Every structure is written in structure tokens, then in C-alpha cells.
């Protein structure tokens, strides 16, 4: 029996790892498909484009991973992004600060604060108000989007000062040793997110709360506090996404962030996080977000599919990718 004891962890670890790498396997598979469809798919430019683009969903999805792992759900992220972006641009246009760099940095700080507050509102309403997160965040989704529409008076809000605009553009289009900033942001957010979820006491509590609320409660964990915090972190992640998003097109409108919530949740689930809570995989989420973005990219790069049927093919690929993952995991 002692012999057996020594073998076991290795076996278990191997199994867990397969689960964790499955989304990456799916991603690689899809990339191979992409390379076959169009040689330019693997070009440096294209890959960085896709990576940079996926920043928004990936960043938001990292927050969503925490929320879902804790047994919650946040449908308001897309609308929240639009709202935060609107406020940030209004601040940039306010001209309160002369120096462009300082102005931009303050605007970023403001975004983070607003995002955290929006998340706090979601969190408190679900936990203290004891209402299904689905309903709460559907409600705040309407609220945030409406507020933006109202701020923009139905149109769009655009950074007016061209100097500010040019300076801020660097945040999306600039790079460090050839690595675009957005890519650095994804990696940074993922590292922090994974660290929080797997290495800190808070992350452990998030898992406990999502896995079995009663056990968490009986273990003296402040369930409401932990859950609320996941929403605050989600808000911060949304704000980080916004900080990268605004410089790209320098504007926000009622169409900003439309449908991001579904994309983020999809990325989370494709990445192997359990929708009912208790199991979360931050790196899987990143792979999930990349899968979504890469599929879209391949669809555009290939000439095979009619423009009307792109959605159908995308849907089918996602289902097939999940099927492949499951098979890989079960092997």
C-alpha cells in the first residue's frame, strides 16, 4: 500500500493538468486550422492584432472567472465598460488638468475607481439584497447602458483634444520591445488573477463559497463579503479593459461593449471554469478568450464561408472545440 501511496499524487496531478491544458490544446488545434486556411494567419502582425484585440474580453473574463467561481454571474460587464469608458472620456474632455500625461493617468485612476464602485454596487445588491445575480446584473446592465446613452445624448463621446488623443493612443498601439502593451496587460492580469485564485486565502474562500455556501458559512467565512469582493474585482477588470479600449478608437457610444458579457462568460466556460461555481481556471479563461477571437479572425481571413453563414460556423466550431476538450480530458 505504501508503494501505491507514492504513485497516486502523480496520477491525480496528471489528470488535473490535462483538464487545465485542454483549452490550450483546443486553441492550438484551432490555430493549426487557421494556418491551413491562410498563410498570413501566423504572421507576426496578425497574431499581435488578434492578441491585442482579445485584451478586452480576456481581461473582463478574468474578473468573470472569479465571480463565477464564487457562485455568481455578471451580465453587466459590457454595459459597465461602456459606462466607464464614457465617464473616462468626459473626464479627458473636461480639461481639468493641463498636462496631458497627468490627465491621462488621472483618467485611468478615475476609471478604476468607477469600475470598482460599479462592481461594489452589483456585489452588494446580490449579497445583501439576496437577489439572483442573474437578475441584479441584468438590471444594472440596463442601468449602465442607459446612463451612457444619456451621457452621450444618444450619440458618441469622443476625445476632443487631439494632443491627448495622440498621447493616449500609445497605450493601445504602443509596445515594449515589440510586445504590444495590450498583450502585456493580458499577461499581467492573468498572472494576478491566477495568483489571487490559487495562491491567496481570498481565492481559496472564493472557491469554497462557490463550491458549497453552507460549508463556507459554517467555516466562518463571510460569504457576502467574499462574493461582493469578487464583483469589485470584476469591476476593476472591466476598468482595466476600458483603459486599454478607450485609446483604440478614442470614443464610446451606446454600441460599446455590446455583447461582451456573453463573450466573457463563454471564454470562462470554454476555459474550464464550472458555471455553477467552485472550480475556476484563470489561464483556461485566457485560452478561451483567445479561442473566441481566433475563430473570428480565421473566419475573416478564410474565403470559404459565405458572409451570411459565419455565425453558424463560429457556433459549430465552439461546440466542436468543447467536444474535443472533453474527449481529451476523458482520455
Amino acid at each position, binding site marked *: 500500500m505504501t508503494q501505491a501511496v507514492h*504513485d497516486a499524487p502523480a496520477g491525480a496531478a496528471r489528470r488535473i493538468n490535462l483538464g487545465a491544458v485542454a483549452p490550450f490544446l483546443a486553441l492550438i488545434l484551432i490555430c493549426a486550422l487557421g494556418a491551413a486556411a491562410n498563410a498570413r494567419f501566423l504572421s507576426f502582425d496578425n497574431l499581435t492584432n488578434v492578441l491585442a484585440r482579445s485584451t478586452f474580453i480576456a481581461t473582463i473574463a478574468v474578473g468573470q472567472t472569479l465571480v463565477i467561481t464564487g457562485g455568481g454571474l455578471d451580465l453587466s460587464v459590457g454595459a459597465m465598460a461602456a459606462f466607464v469608458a464614457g465617464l473616462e472620456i468626459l473626464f479627458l474632455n473636461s480639461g481639468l488638468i493641463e498636462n496631458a500625461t497627468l490627465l491621462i493617468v488621472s483618467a485611468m485612476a478615475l476609471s478604476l475607481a468607477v469600475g470598482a464602485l460599479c462592481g461594489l454596487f452589483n456585489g452588494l445588491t446580490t449579497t445583501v439584497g439576496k437577489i439572483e445575480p442573474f437578475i441584479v446584473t441584468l438590471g444594472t446592465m440596463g442601468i449602465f447602458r442607459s446612463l451612457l446613452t444619456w451621457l452621450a445624448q444618444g450619440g458618441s463621446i469622443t476625445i476632443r483634444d487631439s494632443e491627448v488623443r495622440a498621447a493616449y493612443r500609445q497605450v493601445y498601439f504602443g509596445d515594449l520591445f515589440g510586445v504590444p502593451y495590450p498583450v502585456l496587460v493580458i499577461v499581467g492580469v492573468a498572472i494576478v488573477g491566477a495568483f489571487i485564485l490559487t495562491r*491567496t486565502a481570498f481565492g481559496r474562500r472564493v472557491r469554497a463559497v462557490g463550491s458549497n455556501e453552507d*460549508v463556507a458559512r459554517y467555516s466562518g467565512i463571510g460569504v457576502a463579503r467574499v462574493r461582493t469582493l469578487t464583483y469589485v474585482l470584476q469591476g476593476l477588470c472591466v476598468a482595466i479593459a476600458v483603459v486599454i479600449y478607450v485609446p483604440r478608437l478614442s470614443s464610446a457610444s451606446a454600441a460599446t461593449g455590446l455583447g461582451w458579457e456573453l463573450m466573457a462568460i463563454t471564454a470562462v466556460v470554454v476555459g474550464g471554469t464550472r458555471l455553477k461555481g467552485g472550480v475556476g481556471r484563470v489561464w483556461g479563461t485566457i485560452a478561451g478568450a483567445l479561442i473566441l477571437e481566433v475563430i473570428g479572425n480565421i473566419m475573416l481571413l478564410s474565403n470559404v464561408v459565405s458572409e451570411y453563414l459565419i455565425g453558424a460556423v463560429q457556433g459549430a466550431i465552439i461546440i466542436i472545440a468543447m467536444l474535443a476538450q472533453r474527449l481529451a480530458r476523458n482520455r
Partner: protein
Amino acid sequence: MSTASAPNQPQPDSSRGRLGRGESEFVLEAVGLSRSFGPIEVLGDVSLDVCAGEVHAIIGENGAGKSTLMKILSGHLSPTRGALKLDGAAVDLAGPVDAERRGIVLVHQEIMLAPDLTIAENMFLGREIRRGLVLDDREMNRRAFEAMRVFGVEAPVNLPVERLSIAQRQLAQIARALTVPHRVVIFDEPTASLTPVETAALLRLIGDLKARGVAILYISHRLEEVKAVADVVTVLRDGKKVATRPAAGLEPVDMARLMVGRDLLALYPPRVAAPSAAPFLDVAGFGADGFAEDASFSVRPGEILGFSGLVGAGRTELFEALFGLRKGAGAIRLDGKPQQWRDARAAMRAGAVYLTEDRKGKGLLLEETLATNLTLAALDGFQRGPVVDRAGEARALDTAIQRFDIRVGDKGLNAGQMSGGNQQKLLLAKMMLLDPRVVVIDEPTRGIDIGAKQQIYRFIAAMAGEGRSVIVISSEMAELIGVCHRIIVMRNGRIAGEVEGEAMTEHAIVVLATGVDATAGEAAT
């Protein structure tokens, strides 16, 4: 369901059973069963058989492989090696449903009921009684009520199971199994969460089954009970069969010796008088909304206070309310200082912990590792900066495994993969990490083997010896009498009385708990 009202019961062959144990009489036979989980073999080459009208008890330490064996016999698990024979012919059980179709039913050690369905709905799940297209709920409720009445319980058969006490769920589960046409019934620790009254009812029921020629496999850690009910006893140790003996002439001490492989010391630790200090925890006029009222009591440091009562007496609810885990109100003082515990966290901060009786639902994260579970409540103590100190956790786990004699082959297992008794030990270890001054343990030895029980009693005594106040809620009167200084008995959500010292007898407790003095034949209060 009362045994008489199952019409399509396979009729037992009356020529079998009583004539002695010849191969032809075996209803169910296991030949050389082995089972491994991954590389670990938890069951090695076990053979077993049971005749019609016979109770075959399986005993063994926690993790010995009893439940695993029973799961194989009932089609829930397939053996890695070995074969099953039903009526002398080899069978391959495709699954639990297949087994049930063949008349083999298992009463699980863990509660296996759909929490959102009522007792009646659970009981007839998959075999609903219909009138035409429509479900006949009245009939199902009636039958469920009758089935529960066999245990002397008037159960709310139309409430979601989620709202019932563990004991009621356990009874419902037994009743459910018996509504299936059966010829082999396997009970896996059916009495672990029952009080003596329901236990007695169950044993009577088993007597009926036996008389009808049903073959019964019975697992229990209560060796007295085994002695009372069993015809044959098989002992497992570390997944191997140690012995199969006729129960006659096999005393509990012998069983214990066979189980652990050595002589056991006295079950209960020597009693040390509690220091006569001022009360440490003082509760006055406390009530749990809808379950308990006006409870007042106090415990001194170093004292062990027992809480006894029947199922549904409201003990669990009283303490859950006390610890802010459900609605309730009243005055709590700790060391003279008034307390307001809005949640378990507040109580823990004040130095008081409550160990739930519902280890699966409220005690452990079944899909997390042992270490994660162990440190969950005391996580603040396992941090280096913001990071969880995994090395510290591993050390704590090693200590706990040693101290509480947790038997696991692989420390990387999830809590849900441990045997029931070892889960209970892990829960104990988890709460003890908090180093509390007041400990409330709800059903501390539920499902624990006799060797481990002895360790836990010693542990409780040691805690008291260190000056902690210990409250033990238990449905086993003997253990309360064995370890407590004082026992409070609850009935219908109220404290019915208190017994102390020489007055702590099972009889006195039963009288207080039921309100009926059986010997006098009249109400005691």
C-alpha cells in the same frame, strides 16, 4: 413502507435459510472481490455470502472498505477483480438500477435524496404511482407517511428533504429502499444518525424482514447493536477479510479486537471532575425561530456538557441559532461579557466553534483536497503575507492525520473520496485548528469506528482538561453518559430537564426525552 404492504415482493423459498449455511442457500455471494481507486487497492480479495432470512454484519475500522464492498454488491461500483453470484449463478450488475431490479437494494451511508423533492417524491422517484397520466400524490404521500410511521416518526412527507433533519433524511432513505421490491437489503450505517428510539424501531423492522426471508447485510460501528441483530459477522481490516464468525458468542470486545487487531483499552477515559469555576459560557432564554424556545444553560471551563433528545428535539437548531447560523435570539455571555454572534465568524473570533452534524452538506467541501478542507476555517493562521502557506498546510495535515488517526491512502484525495468516518475525523481536526475555548460538537462520533471513538472521547476529555468548555450533542446516550459531567435533555424544542452524576442513566434520559415513563406507564412531566 411497512413490510407487509409490498405486494410484488419476490417470495422467499422457505426451504432455504434456516437449514444452515450450505452453498445452495446463498442468495448473494461475492467471490474474491478486489477494488482499486487509481493505484490504491482498497479492497483485496474479499469473499462474502448471505443467506435468505439472515443478517450478516460487516464491521471494520473507518476506511476498512465496508462501503466500497457494499457499493460493489449493489452495482454502484464495479470490482477490479472478482465476481458476484446471485442465487448461485454468476451475475454482472450493470448498475444500481439493474441491482434493484434484481431485488438488491442499498441504503447508502451518505444521504442520497434529491434535496428539492419531498420525502414522498423521493421515495417513489422513478416508480411513481399514477392514475392514468396523472401522479397520485395523495396515495404516495399516504404511503410515505405510513412508511415513516414504522419508525415512530410522523414525518412531514410533503416538505422538501432539504428542510428535514439528518435523522429524518436517514429514515426517509431507509423507507425509500424498502419500497423497492427487495430480497437483499444492504444497510450501510443506517443508525449512525438515529437516536435509540428510532434505532430500536429499525431493529424491529429488520427482524420482520428477516422473518420474511430477506437477506440482510448490515454495517454499523455500534457493536452492541451488531450483537443484537446479526447472525453472522464479517470483519474487514485494511481492505482484507479478517474473519467471518457466527454472531452467537462473539462479544463486542471480541469484535473490537478483531477490527483493530489488538486489545482495546476502556472505551471511555477516566472521569475527571470538572473544576468548580464560574460559568464560562452562559446562555439565557435563547430560542431558534420555530425550533427551540427559551433555552437557558451554562458551562464551566473544563466541563463537558451533554445534550440529549429525540430526533427533532431541536438541539441542532438551538446551537445553530446560537452561533448565528440561523435565525434566533437570546442572551449569550462568554466569560461574563455579553456576546452578539451574527455569524459563525463572530463566534470563532470570540473563541467558540460549532461542529456540524451534517458533514457532507455543511462540514466539508467534497471536491476539495484534505488540506484545503482542514485549514478552511483557520485560514488566517496559514498565511505568509497574502499567500497561503502550503507547506504549513501540509504540516498541519500530517499532524491532524496523526492526532485524529485519519486513514487515507493518499493525502492528495478529495474529501469526498474518503470513507465516511474519516470525513468526520477531518471535520473535527478542521475545527480544532481554531484552538477554541468553547467547543460544541454535534454528533461527534457519527459513523466512527470504535477505536477512533475511543480516541475522540479521550480527545474530548483532554480538551476539557485544558480548561475548555465542551458541549457534546449526541443521540448515543451511552457515550454522553460515558464522557459528560452533566446532560441536558431536550424535548419539543425546550429543555426538559438535566441529569448529573449518578443520575445519568439511559432510563432517566429516555424519560425526560419522551415525556413518558415507560416503567410507570404515565407522563413524567
